[in-house]
């Protein structure tokens, strides 16, 4: 699947295979992994949950946004759900473009947009408790009730 939600471990090479093209000189991937320490607190494991049907649409939307902004770009994104242990892969984003600068920028755009508009949530489990994480809770406000595309290259 080129844009998908996966209950099984993600095969990174398969995601990359979706963006191979004869006129790409560069492929970048972003692989989000479960980190043990966040602000000194030790994570035991995570649970990812998705509103799957909408999440897939939003991943596809990010792909469309990227192809509109970066000429010749191809994109594939797969996000994992379920229980993930430390170092497990939560998300893989692959972007190919003719030239390398675009491949980095477009890939970065994809992960930032995932954190804005894709309905996926993580619940962190520590030794002393658990909590649903809402990263954007205090950082982002949505005056129009929904997140808008923003330029990351400012």
């Amino acid at each position, binding site marked *: 699947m080129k844009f998908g939600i996966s209950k099984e471990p993600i095969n990174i090479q398969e995601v990359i295979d979706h963006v191979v093209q004869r006129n790409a000189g560069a492929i970048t991937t972003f692989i989000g992994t479960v980190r043990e320490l966040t602000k000194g607190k030790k994570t035991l494991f995570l649970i990812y949950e998705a509103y799957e049907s909408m999440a897939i649409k939003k991943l596809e939307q990010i792909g469309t946004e990227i192809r509109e902004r970066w000429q010749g770009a191809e994109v594939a994104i797969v996000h994992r759900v379920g229980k993930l242990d430390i170092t497990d892969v939560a998300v893989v984003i692959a972007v190919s473009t003719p030239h390398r600068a675009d491949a980095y920028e477009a890939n970065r755009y994809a992960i930032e947009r*995932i954190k804005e*508009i894709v309905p996926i*949530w993580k619940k962190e489990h520590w030794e002393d408790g658990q909590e*649903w994480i809402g990263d954007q*809770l205090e950082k982002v406000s949505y005056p129009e*009730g929904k997140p808008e595309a923003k330029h990351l290259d400012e």
Partner: protein
Amino acid sequence: MNNVLFFAHLKDEVGVESLQIEAKGKSVLALKQEVHETYGLSSIDSVMTAINEEFAEDDDVIQEGDTIAFIPPVSGG
């Protein structure tokens, strides 16, 4: 009737993944406040709403059969 979906901490607070609610003709904001009061949700200020899998505005009006989802701040990636 309308299918109303809850995710993440909202699902935990409401206690179910979805409810059947008659919401035809109501605004998104009105339904949000109704659900907030009925289920004593801790916070809905930062919660977004989707109608049929697309983000909706607070003043959008719900139609018969629409699927409504309350979307807490996302934390994927």
